[in-house]
């Protein structure tokens, strides 16, 4: 009997499950891979059938359909936003303002489908839900789905119109094919008549959302999506400041060679300098996410010199023996564990990993600290950080002729988008005082045991206020975070086709796949740059040139 034993009564599971890749891989591996999946899928990641709207038509966004931007501030940030960086708050205000004075709901129940990477909260007697529903005035009944297999769930539900709930959350990395061209206009509600321009004034918290976030939710020149705004920088390279300084080393890295040298210095015994630093390589060598303009012509990422340089460097890194063997063996899922345990001292991660590491480690290891490198370029010059999508997760309302229904849902969204400093934000994020948290001596909320079961991210997957760093419970964290990002923000650049919902024709979807494998092979010395040349030639002949023409058309229409 072979190891996948599909025959022993689990035929449906495994046959189907084989398609649910993300469901098969344990948590860490899947998500650490997500940044690379994001770049592989590209902006939007959807695909159009033959005969879809012309590329240029898809990507246009008329200014009139976007909601006006009317910022509202309830608390002054201690570290204000600099060029789009995340503002930081050092204190939780003593009292909150209720931004929506009367709960706008009419007492109905709406169904919502959201993913979850965490433990399923109970529904009966859940005081958290009760509290939020009280603020809303209506009930949102969640159909929570396993985060790793959410793509499969979406694919099936969206294929069966009668099973689509009222409010659907769609992460940008799970966008199904033909999304923009068929699914969106047919299944979801066009929000332009409700939110465009000054109409958004009816929903003050929604008006507070940045325009770029709205732009990303525009399909075929109509606004459809409610955003979960993202940060301008999503990934950073961290180092274990506490452990490294304990060795007497001062970290001063401003070039690729410096980084390599540092990693070498740190390797010894059972400790390795770093994890797989491919994302770092692409950042410091300024590799564009998809396309670049060189002399008026579009050059694909894979053809650029920067890509080659990054590959050369990563091969050097691996060859130097400074990469932890488990990472070499592809076990990136446990990279965090190794990094936090001190078996490797440099690792790239999402910025969200920073506070999570503090959460998990400060308790037992109060001296724990990880710090991101200040951005630098491989050659020591000016770094460039290409901005990722302005939105990573968005949500859609089911199409309905009932204006009152849509208006009510938008009013509920207005409540959910209440920013920091409001009662709503406090309840949604912390729960009920005394039940889900207690205030300690410094006024900081300390979660109770009940919070672990009842308080899980659900409403946050529907719509969110603009980004803000409010994790005051970790000493020094907000300051470090906000100042780092404020400094890094000056190097942020918008790549070509930034924030555009472009649907590539499906036959080109897998063109980039060989390069993903090549990146791994070259890093580990199994292949060389000559193989890269061959891959580029193949890419060109099997659709790359057509893809170039496709994007050129979009570019020309701008």
């Amino acid at each position, binding site marked *: 009997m072979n190891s996948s*034993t599909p025959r022993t009564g689990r035929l449906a599971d495994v046959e189907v499950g084989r*398609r649910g890749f993300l469901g098969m891989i344990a948590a860490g591996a899947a998500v650490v891979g997500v940044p690379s999946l994001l770049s592989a899928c590209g902006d939007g990641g959807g695909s159009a059938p033959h005969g879809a709207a012309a590329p240029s038509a898809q990507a246009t966004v008329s200014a009139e359909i976007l909601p006006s931007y009317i910022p509202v501030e309830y608390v002054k940030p201690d570290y204000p936003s600099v060029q789009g960086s995340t503002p930081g708050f050092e204190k939780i205000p003593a009292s909150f303002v209720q931004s929506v004075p009367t709960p706008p709901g009419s007492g109905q129940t709406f169904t919502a489908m959201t993913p979850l990477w965490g433990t399923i909260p109970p529904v009966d007697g859940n005081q958290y839900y009760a509290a939020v529903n009280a603020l809303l005035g209506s009930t949102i009944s969640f159909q929570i789905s396993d985060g790793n297999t959410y793509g499969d769930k979406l694919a099936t539900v969206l294929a069966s119109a009668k099973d689509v709930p009222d409010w659907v959350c769609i992460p940008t990395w799970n966008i199904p*094919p033909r999304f923009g061209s068929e699914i969106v206009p047919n299944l979801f509600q066009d929000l332009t008549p409700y939110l465009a321009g000054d109409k958004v004034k009816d929903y003050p918290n929604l008006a507070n959302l940045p325009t770029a976030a709205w732009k990303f939710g525009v399909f075929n020149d109509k606004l459809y999506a409610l955003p979960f705004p993202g940060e301008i920088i999503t990934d950073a390279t961290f180092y274990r400041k506490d452990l490294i300084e304990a060795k007497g080393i001062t970290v001063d890295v401003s070039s690729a060679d410096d980084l390599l040298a540092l990693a070498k210095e740190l390797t010894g015994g059972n400790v390795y300098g770093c994890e797989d630093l491919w994302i770092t390589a692409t950042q410091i060598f300024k590799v564009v996410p998809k396309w670049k303009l060189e002399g008026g012509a579009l050059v694909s990422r894979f053809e650029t010199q920067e890509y080659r340089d990054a590959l050369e460097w990563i091969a050097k890194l691996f060859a130097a023996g400074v990469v932890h063997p488990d990472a070499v063996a592809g076990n990136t899922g446990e990279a965090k564990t190794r990094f936090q345990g001190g078996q490797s001292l440099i690792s790239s991660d999402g910025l969200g990993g920073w506070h999570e590491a503090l959460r998990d480690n400060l308790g037992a290891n109060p001296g724990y600290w990880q710090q991101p490198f200040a951005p630098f370029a491989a050659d020591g010059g000016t770094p460039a950080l290409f901005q990722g999508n302005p939105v990573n997760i968005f949500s859609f309302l089911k199409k309905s002729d009932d204006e009152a229904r849509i208006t009510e849902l938008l009013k509920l969204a207005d409540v959910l988008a209440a920013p920091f400093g409001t009662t709503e934000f406090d309840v949604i994020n912390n729960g009920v005082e005394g039940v889900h948290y207690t205030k300690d001596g410094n006024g900081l909320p300390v979660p109770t045991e009940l919070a672990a079961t009842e308080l899980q991210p659900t409403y946050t997957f529907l719509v969110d206020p603009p980004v803000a760093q409010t994790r005051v419970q970790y000493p020094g964290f907000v300051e470090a975070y906000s100042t780092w990002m404020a400094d890094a923000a000056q190097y942020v650049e918008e790549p070509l086709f930034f924030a555009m919902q472009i649907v590539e024709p499906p036959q080109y979807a897998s063109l980039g796949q060989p390069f993903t494998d090549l990146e791994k092979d070259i890093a580990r010395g199994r292949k060389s740059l000559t193989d890269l040349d061959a891959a580029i030639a193949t890419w060109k002949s099997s659709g790359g040139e057509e893809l170039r023409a496709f994007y050129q058309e979009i570019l020309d229409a701008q």
Partner: protein
Amino acid sequence: MTDARLTEDAAAPQPAASSARRRGRSARSGVPQRKVPWTTRLRRDRSLLLMVLPAIVLLAVFAYVPMLGNVIAWQDYSPYQGFLHSPFVGWSNFERVFDNPAFLTAVENTLTITLFQLVFYFPVPIVLALLLNSVMSPRVRTTIQSIVYLPHFFSWVLVVTIFQQIFGGAGLVNQTLRNHGIDHTVSFMTNPDTFLVLITSQAIWKDAGWGIIIFLAALTTVSPELYEASVVDGANRWRRMWHVTLPALRPVIVLLLILRLGDALTVGFEQLILQRDAVGAGVSEVIDTYVYYQGVIYGDWSFAAAAGLVKGVVSLALVLGANKLAHVFGEAGVYQRA
């Protein structure tokens, strides 16, 4: 009526476990077949048909109706437009499956892995079952069984992690070597050349223990009198095994072998994806991962359906072929010429 079926029953191939005699008689040796009209047979076998009915209904509804969905292999399928309105594209999806150079690598790897595991993995549960059965004390036997099947329930992620922990670059083996000053690093987990051995040993570790269960069940069908009789005839251990035990296992082994051959194009998915980066796609790309990376993650259902159909047709052909081969060796196989 009863006579006719009796005749036919006697004409059926002798059950393999029934005797220690030389077999190889053809199924219908010398017994005259009476022509029985089908209406009679229908009436005679109505109980049997009734018995099969519930399963057939379930399969018809839950296996066959959705199977019609494979029509998307010939379409440019869009879930929104559905099966009826997605445009028809002829064989282009099938072409796309074969077109890619990665496909040949995938097929090559798949067949290599299947063959290797057929030789090195398939016999292991059988050997273990025989070994375990020779343990006298039932309590010891049960304890060992209960331990040995446990890895079957570990996820592949855990299995690979465990192997990594022991054989990995930073694992126990290498740490011990380093602590004793030996410079050599064991790179079992990342060496493409030993990949076959690696995945086979993982498969053995994970599933061999579970695989013995069915053989143990088969071994219980052997009547003790046969052993006694053979001992009286002067058979020692080995001859008893050859003439009594193995023939008892033979039908099950043949059945599993045929089904395994039918499954030859499926050699594991999770296990290979988890270790793809470690050894490179060159040795770890198999048909299932190929289909996955070319189509499934991009939601290209038509591509996946086309590939699935190709696999199904080839697998079916393999099973039919293997079955015929079994007949040549005098075995019943999965089905016979009725």
